[in-house]
């Protein structure tokens, strides 16, 4: 049953129970007799480390995988979903960890995709557009149905995904790490929307690695570890530390880096100007120095030029003006390859797209940069034995959960792919490291580990440029914090010199002197 206009006659989902769900993948038991339930009007959070089996559990509820064992009951009746179409029909929607929109199509076309039009065989995009407007107004975010998806920001694309689910009449919506790709402001907006949806009787399942989000929005929390259910609690009756313990099985240490005597300037940016993707001026003269043994954090609301700055430094975006010096050598005109070879490491923000080849094995992905290095080759031939030794060491050190080194990484959980890429870049012993959103999508334990590794690299005299939307992360790790606003650096403060509030003011475009007086 498909429809051009959403039906409200669908039976409401009162209660969903997943009983003793077991699911195997080659070499992995992703879910081991997991029980999970959700009631109408509730927000049920799902927590767990990378690879714990959260996405897998939810994909079974959405009909993408079929459970090997166990039952799915909806309103007490058992259901078998052979495909997402079956799940959609009973009113289940899912927003995936990685979006599934067609970038070259408009919002309306994306929403209508796969649905029967009300006037087959012609499309009824006008009707669809009207309904999209209605829905987007109802939930407090205006989306232009005729805009192309590639023109939208990540946050807006997510809205489209939500509207798509609502349009299909979903009353239970699964959100798989919806906040991983959002700025803090966008997270707030999303929460407003989600709360409104709950008030209208929708039911939500919410996956996140950020505990404060879980505490803020959920009624109940379920924790998975290694495919097993650890427990389900009322959010109001559990503390953050208890949740961490349930997830990781131990306490996570609070980092407190000591100031270091920083070395000579390793990265120097002078008067850097560049254009953004839409032809606007994204960087309007950036000046910044980073010393060896120092972490400089770049704070700012996303879209103020962070991505462009990182890409200019990496050499994948054209600069209009200005110079970049690494160890006093002008690298402004070097292509990316040469910059990497002379000691630059770059962890791109869009790691799935820019940092990994999904069909390549774990081992092949480890050597994306260094496959031609004399260490791992004989002439033009790859030295698999030596590659293997190094790759397995990396996988072990960074605790990447994978059945083997030859597994294609598309079979790894989202967070484990992130970890692998981080591992690769952090192990390259560069002179300068540019890390964009290094802990996005990774679990608490891995975040701690990545932070430790960043600090360790700092001790080894590497200059680190940390670009992050997570202000807490910036404040904990950085020796100095630069605030970016509309393509300019509003000011640079020492750690502990400014409060989070003052940095927030600068992020909003208030000058440093003014911000520091408040």
């Amino acid at each position, binding site marked *: 049953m498909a429809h051009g206009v959403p039906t409200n006659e669908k039976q409401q989902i009162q209660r969903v129970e997943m009983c003793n769900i077991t699911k*195997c993948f080659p*070499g992995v038991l992703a879910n081991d007799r997991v029980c999970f339930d959700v009631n109408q009007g509730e927000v049920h959070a799902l927590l767990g480390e990378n690879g714990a089996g959260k996405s897998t559990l939810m994909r079974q509820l959405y009909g993408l995988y079929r459970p090997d064992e166990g039952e799915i009951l909806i309103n007490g009746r058992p259901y078998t979903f052979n495909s997402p179409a079956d799940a959609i029909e009973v009113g289940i929607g899912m927003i995936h960890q990685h979006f599934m929109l067609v970038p070259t199509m408009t919002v309306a076309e994306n929403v209508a995709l796969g649905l029967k039009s009300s006037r087959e065989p012609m499309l009824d995009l006008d009707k669809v557009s009207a309904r999209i407007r209605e829905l987007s107004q109802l939930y407090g975010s205006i989306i232009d149905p005729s805009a192309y998806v590639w023109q939208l920001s990540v946050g807006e694309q997510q809205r489209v995904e939500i509207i798509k689910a609502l349009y299909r009449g979903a009353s239970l919506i699964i959100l798989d790490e919806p906040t991983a790709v959002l700025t803090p402001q966008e997270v707030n907006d999303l929460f407003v929307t989600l709360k409104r949806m709950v008030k209208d009787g929708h039911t939500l399942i919410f996956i996140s690695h950020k505990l404060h989000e879980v505490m803020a929005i959920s009624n109940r929390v379920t924790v998975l570890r290694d495919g097993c259910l650890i427990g389900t609690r009322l959010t109001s009756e559990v503390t953050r530390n208890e949740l961490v313990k349930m997830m990781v099985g131990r306490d996570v240490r609070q980092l407190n880096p000591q100031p270091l005597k920083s070395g000579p300037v390793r990265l120097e940016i002078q008067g850097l100007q560049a254009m953004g993707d839409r032809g606007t001026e994204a960087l309007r003269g950036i000046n910044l120095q980073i010393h060896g043994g120092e972490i400089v954090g770049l704070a700012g609301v996303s879209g103020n030029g962070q991505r462009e700055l990182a890409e200019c430094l990496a050499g*994948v975006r054209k600069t209009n003006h200005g110079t970049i010096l690494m160890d006093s050598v002008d690298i402004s005109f070097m292509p990316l390859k040469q910059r990497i070879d002379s000691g630059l490491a*770059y962890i791109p923000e869009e790691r799935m797209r*820019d940092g*990994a*080849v*999904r*069909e390549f094995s774990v081992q092949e992905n480890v050597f994306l*940069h260094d496959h031609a290095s004399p260490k791992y080759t004989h002439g033009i031939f790859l030295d698999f034995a030596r590659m293997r030794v190094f790759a397995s060491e990396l996988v072990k050190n960074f605790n990447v959960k994978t059945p083997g080194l030859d597994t294609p990484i598309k079979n790894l959980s989202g967070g484990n792919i992130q970890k692998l890429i981080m591992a690769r870049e952090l192990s390259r012993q560069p002179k300068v490291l540019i890390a964009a959103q290094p802990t996005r999508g990774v679990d608490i334990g891995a975040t701690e580990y990545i932070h430790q590794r960043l600090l360790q690299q700092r001790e080894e005299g590497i200059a680190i440029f940390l670009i992050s939307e997570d202000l807490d992360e910036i404040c904990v790790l950085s020796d100095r914090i630069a605030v970016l606003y509309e393509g300019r650096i509003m000011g640079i403060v020492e750690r502990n010199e400014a409060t989070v509030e003052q940095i927030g003011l600068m992020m909003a475009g208030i000058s440093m002197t003014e911000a520091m007086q408040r």
Partner: protein
Amino acid sequence: MPPEKEEIAVRTRRFGSPGMFFNALLPLAGMLLALLIGAVMLLILKVNPLTAYAEMVGGALGSVSGITQTLVKATPLLLVGLGICIAFRASVINIGGEGQIIVGALAATWFPLTFRMWPGWLLVPSTLLVGFAAGAAWGFIPGILKARLKVNEILTTVMMNAIALQLMNLLIRSVLMDPAGITAGTYLAQSERLPEQSWLTRLVPQTLLHTGTLIAVALAVIVYIFLWRTTIGYRIRAVGLNPDAARFSGINVPFNQALSLTLAGGFAGIAGAVEVLGVQHRLLEGITSGYGFSGIVAALFGGLHPLGTIPAALLFGGLLVGGDKMQRAVQVPNSLIDAILGLVVLFVVGSALWSRRWAARRQMAAAKNQKELG
């Protein structure tokens, strides 16, 4: 998805298990099904399918001459297919096989006629190389246009086919025309016969089977090593699978795309040279026999894997020879043979996909059992 290293490893590990038997049977079953539908079509044409198929199988496999002919036809298919493996692995679509074969054949005709004094041990390898170079040049042009100007390679390779064809038509009727034909006044559109020492050695007397077949198989192994064991092959595959990630790791994406198209052209060029040196011993019209296109199908059939392309090329070679025999024996239209060939492709590819899904299922079950035991 084409079989990757890992799947091959899995396949060899499963060797000997009942699954192996099943896997080998499935494509055969697909083929039988295709032939069954073909039989219905034959019946409609009032031809006894049994006689027709007996002719087909007998023609391709029933005699020394049939088998050698199959091998002779499989050789250019394999060579073109190897190039296709390289190009398609880089996500570059090469439709230019026909043109690349032609220029390879042209070069392999011109070269021995010009250096006819050279001894065979020198002339044959250098002619093959010249054929490779000519085909590579023909692939390089669309390659560089794609790399520099982002011109769609499907368009340009097809146009290069037309250019090569007319170039051959021109040359074969002018500078390359057989002088004997001119003196005799027949003006046949063919070149002079090549000096004998440039011919590829015949492997079986009284047949066309020549050393080119062995060269093609050796090249298949080399291409396999090239794609999976060398840095260049690694880069080509990375570019094909995720150009963004490749670019961010410092791999020159346009360069590698152009390179893969150049190599693909080179292999088709060798195919042209081998046809001239091994089979015809001169350049004729229609030298390509459509190998430039059927080579693509053979490569896809072989899972875009150089070693998989060997049996695929054999199968298609056999179907071409057998189909030809059948057509002559039972007098059916040529298009019916093409239709049956098409059905075979469809069903065997379909069954391969199906068996892969089955293999995945079985593996999962095995993993589960292991977990429960352990």
